[in-house]
């Protein structure tokens, strides 16, 4: 870009407003405040610190793109704010009835609690919406003097040689062809001593960084799952405190994953399903699977007669211990889901995200004191993670998902065993990227199901477009598309003939990809305005299977404007 962009210089820049970065920001401001108190009390000879700290979030606010279960383990919060209960903490509901159910086509078997290791029992956990947690943390962080920029998306990493120097934010006010509208607002170069990437799973910039610095070298590629979730309101008969996890139906034997149904206050239920993205079926559709789960008698008993009021979808990093990248480079750190810090069998990432944020803050505080933001100074972050419960827990369950490669039932036993004992291989390996697993339709192990539109009843069972509506997602129809198919011809000449269908039209949980036209004139149409920023398409886009080379045909970049407006997810 030949133009002069505005430069905004800060000391610390957080990219993404999820629990990881919000906790990091809060911890950093706490450390600085207590340091400065020590300075004014004359207890230390080092100078006071007055860094400028900024956080950018692409959503309308820090809750707008937040979707989680969420069963929240307060362990990291207790460390961050020991008196959190007196500080307006937004959750009050605890898990009171926990169970793990194996669903058959129309029945259920409750798995004995002894199968669940003690550390995974959720009695201490809260049930609530991540949106509320984020908004609350953001309030605390803003009150501590941090600059929070909403609707501001990082679109490019800025470098100074090999050092990360900050990010460029997206240009706003562009038209569909990239031309400038009357209200064109060029993006800003935000310069920082340290940039923290907490963009959640498959961060657009975090992945650029990982690629650029080969941060996953000699580790596993990251594996992901797609989680889709609805909030359902019933007229009466809520079950606040209910936390049911299911395995089995409706997922086919080769899909690793399971469902959940949480009871919230106000006659609300959160129902969702999480499916590992290494499925082989080109017609697998998580949103449809969610409807099938909801039709199951076991789930119906909670939600019958209810109405869907919110919907969202997001990926989760499931590669575990061996897929965690090196989380630091010169001038930058990776936190939370962007670093893959999620515990798969426990289906938990929030408190690991928060703890990684706390550790990142402690690392940055030391770096600021020493005025050294180099990779060698920041490397202590990796050591801190390694000696914390974050990496220790991830190590304990490192072989859980791998055990499921043997199929569901053996996987359950084996997976449970590896979880209890922490045994199993201690080395990375044996993992192929999710996109390599798709198979031609006739070879895929299908879940014996077909989409049946007649089942939708506009109440509790809804089609995909209705769900998209409930996500509140919005992109200006005249903004440039943030999704591109690099070589559209290959969709028709390679992908569809090979798989027997267009997988993107099924795996996208927001009906962004649509096959239009017939035969030789058919093509994939991109309804980018529907997108809920879940990242499934970049992960699952299979075209590289054909070329043998990892050249993705779908290019998804976080857009400068728009996205879901999640409410209570």
């Amino acid at each position, binding site marked *: 870009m030949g133009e002069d962009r505005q430069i905004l210089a800060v000391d610390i820049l957080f990219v993404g407003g999820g629990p990881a970065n919000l906790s990091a920001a809060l911890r950093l401001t706490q450390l600085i405040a207590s340091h400065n108190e020590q300075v004014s009390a004359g207890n230390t000879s080092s100078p006071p610190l007055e860094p400028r700290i900024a956080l950018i979030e692409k959503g*309308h606010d820090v809750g707008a793109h937040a979707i989680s279960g969420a069963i929240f383990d307060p362990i990291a919060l207790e460390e961050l704010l020991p008196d959190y209960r007196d500080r307006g903490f937004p959750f009050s509901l605890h898990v009171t009835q926990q169970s793990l159910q194996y669903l058959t086509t129309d029945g259920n078997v409750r798995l004995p609690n002894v199968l669940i290791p003690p550390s995974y029992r959720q009695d201490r956990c809260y049930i609530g919406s991540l949106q509320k947690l984020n908004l609350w943390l953001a309030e605390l962080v803003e009150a501590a003097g941090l600059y929070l*920029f909403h609707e501001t998306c990082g679109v490019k990493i800025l470098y100074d040689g090999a050092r990360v120097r900050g990010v460029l934010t997206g240009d706003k006010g562009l038209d569909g062809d990239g031309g400038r509208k009357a*209200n064109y607002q060029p993006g800003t170069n*935000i310069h920082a001593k340290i940039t923290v990437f907490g963009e959640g799973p498959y961060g657009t910039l975090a992945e650029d960084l990982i690629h650029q610095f080969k941060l996953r070298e000699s580790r596993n590629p990251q594996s992901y799952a797609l989680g889709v979730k609805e909030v359902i309101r019933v007229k009466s008969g809520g079950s606040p405190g209910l936390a049911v996890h299911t395995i089995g139906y409706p997922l086919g034997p080769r899909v690793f994953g399971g469902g959940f149904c949480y009871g919230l206050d106000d006659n609300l239920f959160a129902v969702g399903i999480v499916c590992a993205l290494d499925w082989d079926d080109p017609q697998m559709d998580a949103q449809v699977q969610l409807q099938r789960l909801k039709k199951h008698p076991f789930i119906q008993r909670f939600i019958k007669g209810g109405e869907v009021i919110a919907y969202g979808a997001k990926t989760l990093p499931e590669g575990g211990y061996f897929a965690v990248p090196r989380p630091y480079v010169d001038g930058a750190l990776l936190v939370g889901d962007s670093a893959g810090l999620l515990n798969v069998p426990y289906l938990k990432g929030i408190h690991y995200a928060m703890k990684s944020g706390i550790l990142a803050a402690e690392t940055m505080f030391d770096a600021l004191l020493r005025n050294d933001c180099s990779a060698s100074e920041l490397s202590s972050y990796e050591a801190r993670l390694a000696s914390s419960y974050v990496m220790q827990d991830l190590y304990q369950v490192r072989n859980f998902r791998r055990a499921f490669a043997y199929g569901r039932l053996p996987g359950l036993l084996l997976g449970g065993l590896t979880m209890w004992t922490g045994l199993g291989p201690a080395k990375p390996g044996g993992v192929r990227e999710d996109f390599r697993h798709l198979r031609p339709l006739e070879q895929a192990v299908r879940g014996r199901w077909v989409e049946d539109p007649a089942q939708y009843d506009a109440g509790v069972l809804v089609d995909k477009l209705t769900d998209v509506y*409930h996500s509140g997602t919005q992109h200006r129809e005249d903004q440039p598309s943030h999704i591109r198919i690099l070589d559209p011809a290959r969709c028709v000449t390679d992908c569809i003939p090979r798989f027997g269908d267009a997988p993107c039209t099924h795996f996208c949980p927001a009906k962004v990809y649509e096959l239009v036209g017939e035969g030789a004139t058919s093509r994939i149409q991109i309804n980018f305005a529907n997108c809920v920023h879940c990242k499934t398409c970049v992960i699952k886009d299979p075209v590289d299977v054909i070329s043998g080379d990892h050249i993705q045909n779908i290019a998804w970049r976080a857009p400068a404007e728009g996205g879901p*407006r999640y409410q209570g997810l």
Partner: protein
Amino acid sequence: MKLIVCIKQVPATESKLAMTRDGTDIERAGLTFVVNPYDEFAVEEALQIRERLGSGDVTVLSLRSHAVQNPEQALRTCLAMGADRAILLSDPAFDGGDNYTTALVLAAALRRLSFDLLLFGKQAVDDDDGAVGIQVAELLGIPHVAVVNKLEVDRQNKTVVAHRQIEGGIEVVEAPLPALITCQKGLNEPRYPSLPGIMNAKQRLLEVWNRETIEIASEAVGSGGAELKLVRLEPPPPRPIGRIIPDDAAAAVQELVRLLHEEAKVI
């Protein structure tokens, strides 16, 4: 040139609303609030007029009520866009009012400020009353032009020329200053606040005026002064389930026409 814009914070248009149990209000917890989109046109227009004339200042004014969540934030958004001054009218006495008492409070505050042009959105998208701006003009005894989608200011002659879209054409209206304009979509493309603008706005103090500042009797405003009482809100009827007409395109169109004619009776 002194420009004043009155703004309101409203739930974002794509919000999904639920009624409170007694059916006289909406649940506000968990909603995202934004500056009313029509008010954004008004703010943008004021900023553009200031820029075109090369001088002037833009003041934004907002009234806190039970219907808005965080009027401070809305005012800061306007400061970040480039407004010079922000005033929040806030007093428990203002609670429970209607569009008339809102206009009374705003008019009382505006009498304390000097202005050449007042800008409002044509309506707030939450209650869609569209009544506050024009009542303020009446209370202040100044001319108003409503639902304007093009505006020219003639500083020499102290007039504004406003264009209004009417059935089948455009109405061009001239009014002497001071005047009040309510703004319609199409007037401009509101700018995005810049990052330095947002940083700057965060550090600015908002002026807060209460009932005493604007010297208005508490009986006259809020629930005591309101002439309208909201009896009941009803959600729109639930959307009936859609129907997919199978078959090839030609046959499906025939069936669609038949259904529209015979069942829906719309053609």
